[in-house]
């Protein structure tokens, strides 16, 4: 009975001592966890930069950041023979940033659509995306882009079915 012997030898009330120990361990544990959590947070945030800031050189080079904008009409170019694709994103206010991406683009990706990309900005000013996000509701604008322009959800039969640059022949 290890607890019994301790109980008699201690001067402090055993229950209080025990509780103090539990609280001490808890505070220590929570403190350590908080430090680890904040460290992890610090290392894994991706700052968002709109096109004008990237063009102006305000975005850091070769760091994980997020860029977003509207895909410029006619700018989407696919390399033949590979999965490489490049396009321009714009803030619709004169600033455009070239983006490259290797892989499968999301369904809602299309010219004139708002997208957000995770990736790194190269020294040459080309944004190399590791992930491209487009929203699964075409009425929806990412919060980052909503500030750039007001966009009314299409109603009724005003929907333009050709706007996504891809049509299933059928």
């Amino acid at each position, binding site marked *: *009975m*290890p*607890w019994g012997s301790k109980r008699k030898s201690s001067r402090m009330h055993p*229950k209080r001592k*025990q*509780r103090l*120990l*539990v609280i001490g361990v*808890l505070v220590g*544990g*929570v403190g350590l*966890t908080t430090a*680890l*959590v904040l460290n*992890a*947070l610090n*290392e*894994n*945030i*991706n*700052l*968002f930069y709109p096109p004008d800031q990237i063009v102006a050189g305000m975005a850091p080079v070769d760091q994980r950041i*997020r860029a977003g904008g509207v895909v410029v009409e006619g700018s989407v170019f*696919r390399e033949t*023979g*590979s*999965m490489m694709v490049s396009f321009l994103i714009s803030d619709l206010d004169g600033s455009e940033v070239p983006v490259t991406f290797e*892989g*499968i*683009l999301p*369904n*809602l990706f299309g010219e004139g659509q708002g997208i*957000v990309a*995770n990736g790194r900005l190269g020294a040459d000013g080309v944004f190399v995306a590791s992930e491209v*996000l487009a929203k*699964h*509701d*075409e*009425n*929806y*604008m990412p*919060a*980052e882009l*909503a*500030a750039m322009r007001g966009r009314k*959800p*299409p*109603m*009724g*039969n005003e*929907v*333009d*079915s050709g*706007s*996504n640059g*891809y*049509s*299933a*022949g*059928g």
Partner: protein
Amino acid sequence: MIPELGHFALALALGFALLLAFVPIAGTYTGRVVWMRSGGSLAAGMFAFLLLSYICLTYAFLADDFSVAYVAQNSNSLLPIHYKFSAVWGAHEGSFLLWTLIMAGWTVAVALRSQGLPLDMLARVLGVMGLISIGFILFMLLTSNPFDRLLPMSPADGSDLNPQLQDFGLIVHPPMLYVGYVGFSVAFAFAIAALMSGRLDAAWARWSRPWTNVAWAFLTVGIALGSWWAYYELGWGGWWFWDAVENASFMPWLVGTALIHSLAVTEKRGVFRSWTVLLAIATFSLVLLGAFIVRSGVLTSVHSFAVDPERGFYIMVFLLLVVGGSLALYALRAPVMRADANYDGLSREVMLLVNNVLLVVATAAVLLGTLYPLIYEAMTGGDKLSVGPPYFNAVFVPLMLLLLIAMAAGPLARWKRTSFDELWRQLARIAVVSVALGVVLPLMFAGALDLWAVVGVSVAFWIVLSLIQDTLSRVAHKGDWSSRLAAVPKLGAGYLGMWVAHFGIAVSVIGISMVVVYSDERDVRMMPGDTVEVGGWDFRFDGIRQVDGPNWSADEGIITVLKNGRERMTLLPQKRHYPVRGMIMTQAAINPRLTRDLYVALGEPLGGQAWAVRVHYKPFVRWIWLGALLMALGGVMAAVDRRYRRLAERAAQRRESVAGNLAEGTS
């Protein structure tokens, strides 16, 4: 006419909610039994009118009434009829009507199933649920009326239900999730009622336990369905993204898990009472916070509804009222309730405390990561950022690992005091065997070792073996094996429910570690005739054909799957085009088996006859959701433990005799 009737019914339901929030509780202060008894009928009235309102909205969908804005935005005359039923909850307004209806359903359920509850307690519980319902119904009437008309310029046809929601998973996912979310309002109402009365005793915990278990089980199923849906519908093959909206449902689940364990301690041992109350408040507050995150659109997410500051503001105010009000009540009342702690440094109480601390810390970490973009934006005056999945993994995985390790020892530890030696004697062997299995099984399966696979599988066996050990020691006093086996069902539904739920965790842990470690994925450009090898299988692209559905047309890829040169199956992934919304949808083709999924999704056409194709090999991915179903089953099993019913019956008898005495005394 029918939509106006629905709107009117909604207003009447608000009237019932107002009465429900006021009359029964006022009865407890004035001692009017009739007022206290009115809770049940008022709840029924609220439910009936919300149901009527819901039926009216469903009717508007079935009748293609596109003069109703919500119908026009979320339906179409070509939409298949079963999707017209589910389209009712396909967007914000209707889904909130369903949410409120479910809230009223829970209220009626509490009124019906609480014969054992003292009258004043039931009156308070129903009153608190009425208060919450006021908030919900008012929210709908003020900011999100699903019956708003588009007159006189109503469109000829609707702009269709979002194609992504035209799917079985999305039919069942939101109702399950909502039943779980709103179900935690019962635990919350019980906690608030107990605070009001100052009777925060074991009986209170006993009443709230079954309700909390059932709500938790539904939330578990809802989250699992959402994960499964995202897996096959989004076409990325991922099953969890640490997306803001996923986190919004996961946080109440984590704290709710802490709550069902803390309630157990409060019921069995009478300790942790104040803490349990705080958890009940926290769980429901996180439900409301989740509603805020999802419905205000303040956070970027793949799921969120359109941005609407007005709705966000309303929910924020409601959330602050609920949190502020309940914490103020807590501050006033909590000091009254002192627990006489009587347990040692190593006991089941302490193990459950460890469970609670880890779950709450994990929740706090998820909360921080989820809200950090908002905090940062507010602090910097508009700069935006996102927190990536690596943050959540780095924080969440180690905490859960500690939790899983403690989980094995929890059921083995005894109440009040347990000796370390005794625990170790039971666990040492298990530790050795589970690490051995953790090394051998992944090696046999994949032929390669990986630290995380070893850790995951070991921990899963650590949990399962300790559960078996625990059961064996509980029936050890029965003589031979057959009578021991016969004694297992007699251990009680509560115990067996715990067993099944913990077993479910182990199953999910195996699924998660295997799929994370041994998945194989390729995004490739394929011409007809091309073959790609993924996870030991060969996938041959045999070209594209056209197929048509009721409200879509599609390119369908023909992929022949071969193993060792022999054709084994054909997978037919589709790229669907929904003309009304002009939307493209990926329909992945999946060949599911217990130990692996083969998963193929079409990307985009790359010119000529080439297509981008995404091929996945996902070992044990089903186990993630299977484990969640087992957890939910365990939760329900524990809730139907006969113990609760017996106690309720006994309490009802006692109350009747007391009431009889009272009646004699007053007459």
